[in-house]
């Protein structure tokens, strides 16, 4: 079942992944062409705001993927995954802040505007190094990764599971939100970090930069998807499923459950951090509201609606729900969006426990069964499964 190289497996055996890659490939080619090469007055022109909007959806899809890896496969329901996303975002934001240089309102070559405003004289030590892109990129992974490692090490070792774990993840992101709201933390307080000018010397407002960021996000999403597929289809992935289904049984077979949980939790936080880092230059701002517990709960809803424990379901769910959000929050339904979201969640949980992909899957199985019934008339040799 899973004893072939992962890429071969993805492209030959797994229909859903194949479709996903086809769609991503088409997006990756078509969107840049339609934005950059097609004249703005053409009906086929994709405006830049649309490129950025899709880019944002892709960042959210990556975040949903990260959550599905731990929730769908290992049963760890994190209600604070937005924290890792925001930390990755802040690391990128700090780099972009330093890139502004003396082009800020106050024209200070070293200090970001908000520090000048607060009458700070020098750069706090934890801002050192962020003028270097490589260092910032390292921090994009290190900050969420370290936090996840520490948190996971303590929580999983003390065998905190289920709803208790969910509650402390929620507390974690809430505490971070309060901390980042404070001006003297040195992260821009409630305004956060914004007014970015350029990234690696490229103007952030330029169409070509926007399109490049979009393509990079798409590639990162594909990479993260392949990584998650690899993990979940390896024997380690089957240990994760076994932890989800029967944790204490897994211990008695001889697996250190806490090590597996810690591993997958850290990997998930790294993906979330990267998603945040890609989100910030496209959106142009990062502020403490990203730590809001509500955001983290929304991620869970995306995954639940898309279909938990399938990976591609998480991606579909994140894009569908966010598309709906964009549509509904701009029209007459704006005031009712949260009710719509809540209703969607309730309906999915009760009637579609396997989410949107569950519907597709059910249909596919029905077709397969029909085929099998027809084939049953003619005897086939016993196939050796499992190999």
């Amino acid at each position, binding site marked *: *079942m899973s*004893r072939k190289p992962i890429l071969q497996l993805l492209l030959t055996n797994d229909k859903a992944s194949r479709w996903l890659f086809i769609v991503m490939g088409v997006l990756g080619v078509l969107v840049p062409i339609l934005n950059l090469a097609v004249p703005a007055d053409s009906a086929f022109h994709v405006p830049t705001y649309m490129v950025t909007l899709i880019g944002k959806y892709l960042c959210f899809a990556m975040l949903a993927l990260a959550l599905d890896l731990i929730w769908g496969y290992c049963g760890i329901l994190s209600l604070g995954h937005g924290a890792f996303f925001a930390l990755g975002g802040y690391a990128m934001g700090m780099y972009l802040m330093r890139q502004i240089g003396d082009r800020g309102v106050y024209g200070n070559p070293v200090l970001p505007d908000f520090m000048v405003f607060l009458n700070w004289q020098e750069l706090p030590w934890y801002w050192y190094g962020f003028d270097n892109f490589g260092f910032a990129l390292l921090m994009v992974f290190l900050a969420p990764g370290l936090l996840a490692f520490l948190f996971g090490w303590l929580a999983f070792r003390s065998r905190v599971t289920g709803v208790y774990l969910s509650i402390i993840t929620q507390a974690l992101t809430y505490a971070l939100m309060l901390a980042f709201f404070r001006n003297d933390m040195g992260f821009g307080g409630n305004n956060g970090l914004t007014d970015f000018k350029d990234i690696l010397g490229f103007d952030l407002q330029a169409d070509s930069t926007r399109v490049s960021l979009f393509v990079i996000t798409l590639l990162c999403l594909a990479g993260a998807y392949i990584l998650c597929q690899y*993990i979940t289809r*390896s*024997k*380690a992935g*089957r*240990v994760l*499923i*076994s932890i989800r*289904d*029967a944790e*204490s*049984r897994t*211990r*008695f*077979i*001889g*697996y*250190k*459950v806490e*090590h*597996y949980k810690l*591993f997958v939790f850290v990997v998930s936080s790294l993906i979330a951090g990267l998603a945040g880092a890609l989100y910030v230059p496209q959106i142009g701002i990062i502020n403490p509201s990203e730590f809001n517990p509500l955001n983290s709960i929304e991620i869970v809803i995306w995954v639940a609606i898309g279909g938990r424990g399938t990976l591609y379901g998480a991606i579909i769910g994140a894009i569908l729900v966010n598309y709906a959000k964009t549509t509904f929050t701009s029209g007459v339904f704006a005031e009712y969006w949260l009710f719509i979201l809540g209703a969607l969640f309730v309906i999915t949980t009760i009637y579609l426990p396997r989410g949107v992909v569950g519907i597709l899957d059910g249909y596919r199985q029905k077709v397969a069964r029909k085929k099998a019934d027809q084939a049953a008339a003619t005897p086939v040799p*016993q*196939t*050796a*499964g*499992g*190999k």
Partner: protein
Amino acid sequence: MVETKVQSILYLNGVTKSFDGFKAINNLSLDIRPGELRAIIGPNGAGKSTMMDIITGKTKPDEGEVKFRDVIDLTKHDEAEIANMGIGRKFQKPTVIESLSVWENLELALAGHRNVFQTLFFKLDKAQIERIEEILLLIGLQERRAEQARNLSHGQKQWLEIGMLIIQDPELLLVDEPAAGMTDYETMETAKLLKSISENHSVIVVEHDMDFIRALDTKVTVLHEGSVLAEGTLDVVSSNPRVIEVYLGR
């Protein structure tokens, strides 16, 4: 597999464990020889499950010795470590991994690599595939290897779980009520299976079903209120008046 040097595969001495003042295990002593098949019976609340929990590291005793192969102090290790030392446990309720196939369940339990990075890059080799085939044959599930474990019958799940135990190559197997919920035929098949396993493993079976115990035809220990009430062949213990009073007479 059994080394002759080892005197006792499992040795419990004066073990006591209380929960909120209730003594689930009270000065319990037990000595299992290498290669022995031992049946343990006792009414509900006699401390059978707690005893299993203590041996497998899920619960720490308040006092007393728990020794594996004469020298290893089991109270100092956690579940995963104890499992890797060679003590396998089958639960009362069959707990196989429902959403994995029969084959994958066995692969998971297969003796060997247990750490994250080993399993991340794990591939079955030829000997391991043969070993899984061998176990499939033993538990009679060759035809259902690709089936998700959730689709197995109750008896088949029990067998799969026993298969998962054997494939870990443990020296000592703890089997909790294997015949619970089985048909008469399945019960007798299970007794046969356990007897054949005990030819090269030490086995402790906890069971309620007297027909099953009789079919095992082995030494029986009767537990009551956390300690040993009687020990001997089934005929000897079942004629013991105290045993009749607390257990068999009901």
